């Protein structure tokens, strides 16, 4: 199954042949595609078989396995997004793309765990972005089976796997909690002024500045065995405010991540723990791409779009998310 950068004409041919596709590319390319069973999101960064790259003249296309059925493409707005799990069971899979900084992105980040049926069917996806040099002018967009760019919608490609198989969603997070202070937050949100560090209230920006914290390393929480990151967007010591790429939550213990060595070496050592040849779709975070210096470097069979956020049931940061299919029983 192709899972790689393809020229526009090859993608057009696959769509016209009825192939369900997950697509990622520069907006100018996605706008040229015909109607069909596909969803797409804007991003010009990719991990390709030849290494990480910025590419605006090809489309990253992921074909889905032949055994899937009942393929549908859907859009959700802010009012309907809470129903994203409705009517789905373990054999239904939803691939989701949200435009970064949109209302649906913020809503999903803050509320997905509160949606009815949270985590009761496999949900994976990513947050669409733009060329970092165009951040001030361009807006991330998504597409739902036709060349109409959407800025305020979530797009979903849902399909069914046969009863003999199940979808296996996993994450690869290079970061683990460090051995330092326990950090809590009194309120949920994408920013915080106040934190509770080892039980003592303090200004979080002042705390990070005083510690000389490396904010390329995320906050990490232990979610019943899964390490979940919250990445730093900005620390404004003067204003006493810290901004994040994902929300923090009250009632959750965070720690600054332990430092890691060479990103690619670490990634490769973790990859040995998985059957990467079975992965059908994966995506990796733009922060890993930047901080790990992934441009021009390879990450084995793990390829896909570089994203402004990852989704494995809920929004994640600085993480690789992937899906494979396994035999049941």
């Amino acid at each position, binding site marked *: 199954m192709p899972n790689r950068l393809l020229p526009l004409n090859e993608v057009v041919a696959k769509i016209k042949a009825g192939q369900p596709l997950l697509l990622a590319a520069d907006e100018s390319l996605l706008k040229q595609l015909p109607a069909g069973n596909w969803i797409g999101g804007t991003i010009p960064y990719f991990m390709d078989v030849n290494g990480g790259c910025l590419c605006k003249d090809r489309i990253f296309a992921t074909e889905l396995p032949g055994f899937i059925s009942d393929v549908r493409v859907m859009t959700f707005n802010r009012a309907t997004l809470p129903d994203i799990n409705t009517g789905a069971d373990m054999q239904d899979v939803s691939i989701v793309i949200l435009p970064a900084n949109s209302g649906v992105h913020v809503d999903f980040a803050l509320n997905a765990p509160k949606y009815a049926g*949270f985590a009761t069917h496999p949900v994976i996806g990513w947050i669409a972005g733009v060329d970092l040099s165009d951040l001030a002018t361009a807006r991330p967009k998504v597409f739902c089976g036709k060349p109409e760019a959407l800025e305020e919608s979530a797009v979903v490609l849902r399909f069914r796997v046969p009863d003999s198989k199940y979808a296996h969603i*996993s*994450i*690869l997070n290079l970061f683990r909690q460090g051995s330092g202070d326990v950090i809590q937050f009194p309120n949920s949100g994408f920013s915080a002024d106040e934190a509770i560090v080892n039980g003592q209230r303090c200004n979080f920006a002042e705390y990070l500045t005083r510690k000389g914290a490396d904010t390329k390393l995320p906050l990490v929480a232990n979610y*019943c065995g899964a390490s979940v990151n919250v990445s730093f967007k900005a620390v404004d010591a003067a204003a006493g405010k810290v901004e994040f790429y994902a929300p923090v*939550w009250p009632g959750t213990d965070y720690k600054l991540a332990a430092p890691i060595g060479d990103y690619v070496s670490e990634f490769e050592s973790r990859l040995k723990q998985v059957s990467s040849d079975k992965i059908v779709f994966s995506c990796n975070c733009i922060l890993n791409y930047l901080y790990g210096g992934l441009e021009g470097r390879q990450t084995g069979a793990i390829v896909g779009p570089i994203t402004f956020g990852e989704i494995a049931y809920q929004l994640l940061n600085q993480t690789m998310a992937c899906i494979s299919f*396994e035999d049941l029983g």
Partner: protein
Amino acid sequence: MDDGCGGCVNRRASGQAARNIMNIEQIPDRVWLTILSSDAPLDCEFLALSLFFTNVRRRHRTHASPPAELIKDIRAFFNKYAALPSTQRDLAKLLKLGGHHA
């Protein structure tokens, strides 16, 4: 890798765990309340359960939802994923934490 189903392929759940799944509706509310209230660390194999259970524990801790609603959600979760061996193994761990002996 935090495993969505923890190397569970071709491994069969224990008979005890399978029985737990079949009797999910009969597990008393007090068992779930004990698990929800516990601060004991959990290490789930199944990623969906790791995220789900962290969420219901948070909702319980912050009084965001009444216990009856959380228990209903937990039962619905396990009923949906009853066929997965990793879920069954995780359920067995949870029930042990809740002091439940089937």
